[in-house]
């Protein structure tokens, strides 16, 4: 695969070229909102639904039927102030798919009937989200570090529901205007001719609009927030979902980030069984099915937090938390071993290599980096830095940034069943 990233006519473009690929994947994102509130988030989520709910020419049903007949998929999502369109199609259907995409981007209808329907559907979906214990545990932890006006803050389903009914047609049209005039980041994966066709079309769509970059206000995180236990009752679940973590005063430009991420991988590499937490808390102690760690919400200039994700049964939750914190403390104090350092260089290299076996995974990887403000060249440089971290650098980073005394523990699920055990933790 041939991968390049460039900036052309205000567009940030990623190209993932695979000769003779039969499929095409397109990601198109715009950072729309510089700040956050329940009203803003609700409006953005409703907008993503309505962008696919009819154009000046076609009804919602007609759009869906046309995509179906082409065998193409389109999805619109919103997260952290950003709207993303994801399109997948066969290479031989790329032109009609792009014709439809152009219609959708340029001329959404925002009909009152569709707005009414979409509001009702969204409120019903938010009702379901109240039972998503894993999502709630993560959101509680996230919100312990991030201010509610920051677009990375995750507003509750309850607060979003209250705002949905108040959104007007003119507000949705204003969001559309903003979307068109923001800088777009696009990544395309496929054969060369497909890439050229997609990029030309998107450039053509964008030609009449601005490419503004919003002044996103990111509040500095409190990296000394004291340890605490956050709980949310979801009675219908059997297990307690947990997110552990602490604020991390590092961004993508910080030279310590690679060493810290290397160390965090040794502690709990995301996916698989290689991390220490999997071999101790899961394998040796049998306390959970999966336990992983990674950094979250870090940007080019924004700092984020590190997080461990797992779940325990109510009867094992005290032991599970104690074991997890023991491993955090151990790696903070003693660092990684020489054997771990040597092995994880290979493990991390293999992980990157296996990604390239899949066109769609590679395209997603490139796009994710562009959204972080990292070109492909920058990403490659980062990977090299990761592979060249010394054991000493990793251990210094863990000592400095993985602070057990600051770990916030967020739990969602049947917390009532573990009330007494949890009360003894803090």
């Amino acid at each position, binding site marked *: 695969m041939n991968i390049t990233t460039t900036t052309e006519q205000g567009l940030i473009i990623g190209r993932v070229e695979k000769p003779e690929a039969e499929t095409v994947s397109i990601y198109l994102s715009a950072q729309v909102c510089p700040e956050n509130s329940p009203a803003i988030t609700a409006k953005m989520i409703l907008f993503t639904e309505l962008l696919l709910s009819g154009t000046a020419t076609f009804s919602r049903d007609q759009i869906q039927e046309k995509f179906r007949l082409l065998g193409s998929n389109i999805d619109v999502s919103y997260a952290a102030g950003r709207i993303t369109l994801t399109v997948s199609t066969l290479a031989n259907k790329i032109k009609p798919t792009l014709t439809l995409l152009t219609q959708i981007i340029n001329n959404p209808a925002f009909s009152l009937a569709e707005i009414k329907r979409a509001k009702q559907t969204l409120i019903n979906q938010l009702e379901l989200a109240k039972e998503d214990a894993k999502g709630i545990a993560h959101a509680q932890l996230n919100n312990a570090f991030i201010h509610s006006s920051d677009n990375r803050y995750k507003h509750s389903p309850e607060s979003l529901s209250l705002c949905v009914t108040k959104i007007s047609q003119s507000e949705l049209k204003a969001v559309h205007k903003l979307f068109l005039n923001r800088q777009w980041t696009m990544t395309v994966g496929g054969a060369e001719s497909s890439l050229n066709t997609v990029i030309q079309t998107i450039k053509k769509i964008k030609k009449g609009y601005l490419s503004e970059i919003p002044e996103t206000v990111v509040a500095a995180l409190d990296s000394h927030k004291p340890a605490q236990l956050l709980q949310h009752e979801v009675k219908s679940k059997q297990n307690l979902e947990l997110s552990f973590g602490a604020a991390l005063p590092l961004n993508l430009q910080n030279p310590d980030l690679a060493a810290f991420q290397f160390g965090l991988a040794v502690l709990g590499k995301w996916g698989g069984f290689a991390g220490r937490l999997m071999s101790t808390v899961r394998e040796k102690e049998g306390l959970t099915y999966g336990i992983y760690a990674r950094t979250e919400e870090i940007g080019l200039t924004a700092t984020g937090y590190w997080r461990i994700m797992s779940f325990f049964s109510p009867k094992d939750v005290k032991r599970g938390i104690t074991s997890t914190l023991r491993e955090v403390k151990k790696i903070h104090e003693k660092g990684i071993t020489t054997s771990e350092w040597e092995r994880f260089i290979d*493990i991390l290299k293999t992980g990157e290599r296996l990604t390239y076996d899949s066109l769609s995974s590679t395209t997603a990887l490139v796009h994710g980096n562009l959204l972080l403000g990292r070109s492909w060249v920058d990403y490659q440089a980062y990977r090299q830095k990761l592979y060249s971290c010394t054991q000493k650098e990793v251990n210094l980073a863990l000592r400095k940034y993985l602070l057990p005394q600051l770990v916030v523990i967020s739990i969602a699920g049947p917390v009532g069943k573990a009330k007494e055990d949890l009360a003894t933790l803090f």
Partner: protein
Amino acid sequence: MSKTLKKANTLSKSFRLIKTVGDISEYQLKANGLRVLYKNIPDTGVVTTNITYLAGARDEQNGESGLAHMLEHMLFKPTISDLNIKADASAMRFEREVGVVLNANTWKDRTTYFFSYGKEHFKRAIEIEADRMRNVVLTNKEFLPERTNVLSEFDMYNGDPKFALSVALVSAAFFSHPYGHETIGFREDIESYTIEKLQLFYNHYYRPNNAVLMVIGDIPLELALSTIADSFAHLEPEVSVETRSHITEPKQEGIRRINIERPGTTNILAIAVKHPGFPAAGWYETMIALKFLTDDVCSTLQKKLVDTGLASSIEVSQEPTKDTNIATLYITLTNKTTHTKMEELVLKIIREIDLKHIAKELPGYITKSLASEAFNRDSSLQIAAELTEFTAAGKWEEYFSVKENLNRITPKDIKQRLKSLFAEDQLTIGIYKSF
């Protein structure tokens, strides 16, 4: 010796070519019956190997549900050779030293283990699979903590109302056929497993003549086969494993119902229908019929239930199992309706779907399914995963017939399929009520 001659020798001495369909060839190791499916994807530097044992949840005895899945976990424990060098399980070391992608999964008809890795590790991957086919040491020291993990996994699934419904639905839908329990088993059964039960299952089913080894990726044929022969040829087959008894489920003579009540806020109506096994024409017809009902925001039930605010979501599950199984519609209700009213409405909507409407919509659902196939074959890992289902059904060559199977479906087939699937005396209905 020239490369060509060596290739010919390996093939004729150790393997017989069974057949080639498309770009996949099937070989059989003469020594013990191990079958190999080989597909070359050059220049990627990556290989996926996948070994599928034709033993799954259907092969378990009463009171031992989930045993196949428990054993799957135990194959990540040390073998005799690992213990000899006082090391962790070789499969785990493979990940912890090299970073391979590895995992396993158990289903109704099969249990599958896979590795995806840089091609220079091919020999190691094959040696690990051969070693753990017969030599895992099953002891309480390894088994007891792992059983706690499986119980934790069970609780993870069981916290999902749809899983709880599924457990009860399959139990009600099957009186005799062994598809009547979920793959992970019942919690009470998991708590009563013993090492002896695991050992019996392992000894019987984990045999070369009951396994299919897939090699997908950037590795030459002759190297693949000679490495496999070196590692597997000494393993003993088990003759009796080849005769899995065929069980015919007694005829269903009326609607069956199950109820679950739990604390919470979710209310779900589940409608389970019986469909032909995979990859028969009827399985594909069922898939398209269910897509027609639920697949995208403008499908029939989405329009009439979600858009009207009666349901907050509709999901469908259909498994590629060898024999007749159930597919299930899960409809999450809003507070605007009741389970009874929803059941009446859904069945009425399905009865009233006319041929003209199906004829209009069908080409789109077929085209979309064909496009999904192209995306499902995006990497060696995905190709192996898809091929696994065809292999477990005993017809790997049908991997190449998906297009043909989908394109021959007519509107009349879908109309007839909907009628037979949703015939009221053949349904199993589940109600999940929160209090």
